[in-house]
């Protein structure tokens, strides 16, 4: 194993088995620099672990009883708080509010659509009433409208 390989492994591989690796150990015995790397890695691991170990106290069965009671009290307190809070009311009514909201949006969309359709129909009917359905006949026939000049009038004009 080369120094580069040892260094790369120690810096990138985080498994605890690595420090115990036989190959790395045998290389580190003959290389002061890698030896130092290994010592640092090992010390770092031991120190981080020691932080939690020092706070580990003797565990008594009474702790379990106390813990259960503590957690139960906490749950009860939260339940009581929830029961009397606005949050609960909002959470409880959230689905209904959402449903109403969705319904309102749907109604708005539908009413808007109907209104548009209605106005289009209205416009179409207006247009229809203004134009003569027998427009072809009108074009062929001589003018019956008093406002438009007749053939005779135009002849007279000439």
């Amino acid at each position, binding site marked *: 194993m080369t120094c580069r390989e040892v260094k790369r492994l120690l810096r*990138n591989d985080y498994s605890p088995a690595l420090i115990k690796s036989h190959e790395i150990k045998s290389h580190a015995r003959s290389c002061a620099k890698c030896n130092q790397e290994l010592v640092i890695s090992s010390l*770092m*691991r031991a120190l981080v672990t020691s932080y939690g170990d*020092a706070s580990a106290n003797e565990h008594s069965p009474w702790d379990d009883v106390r813990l259960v*009671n503590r957690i139960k009290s906490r749950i009860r307190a939260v339940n009581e708080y929830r029961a009397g809070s606005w949050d609960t009311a909002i959470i409880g009514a959230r689905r209904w509010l959402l449903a109403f909201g969705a319904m309102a949006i749907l109604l708005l969309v539908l009413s808007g659509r109907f209104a548009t359709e209605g106005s289009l129909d209205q416009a179409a009917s207006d247009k229809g009433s203004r134009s003569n359905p027998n427009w072809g006949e009108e074009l062929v026939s001589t003018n019956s409208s008093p406002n438009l000049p007749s053939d005779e009038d135009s002849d007279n004009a000439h």
Partner: protein
Amino acid sequence: MLVNQSITQSAFSLSSTDAEIAHFPASTIASDDQLIELTLGGDEMAFESLLLRHHRRIFSIARRFFRSRETVEDIVQETFSKAFFSLSTFRRGATFEQWLAKIAVNNCYDELRRRKKRSESLITELSTDEEGWLQIKLSQTAFETHFNEAEKGIAAEISSKLLSNLSIEDRLVLTLLHAENNSIKEIAQLTGWSEAKVKIRAFRARHSMRRAFQRLRKAEERKLRVIGEISR
């Protein structure tokens, strides 16, 4: 906040007394999933069984981050309370302990963030005795470091100071990696971060600690050189 959680469950009644709790339910045969179903149906003893089955692991996680017994108990309490109110969101068939651990890690992370206190410099942080002790440890040739009972206290103190120099995220990853012996993948699952992010954090944290050690080692070498020159 617990209040913001959307689960509404039957109230966890407090009818049982200490005497009743003292004979803990022997639901050792029931699986976690069965106990969860029972809890969701309003059986408080089932939740007690879950609690007693998994509290050691949660204690262990919290102890890795906090030394005060009170804080550790707060974390455990908060973890189980959150678990109780989110129990209906737990996916059946998944590992309940892992799910609890995830909640615990998040609680620890939140607590660490609340307590965020950064030191100015490592050298001024460590006392002369601590520096000396660390230098002795660094000059050893044994590849595996073990602390005896007398050393555990000072090791924990030094560890606390070194860890406090790291960012919260780096500290979280380093602790889960070395103290809890989690893999990168497991840490990613516990924290909800990507594996790449966990790797970067781990690398950065180890680099930072290594640099601190090297700084101490160089200081020791300089001191020895000066002593050598004077004696000549």
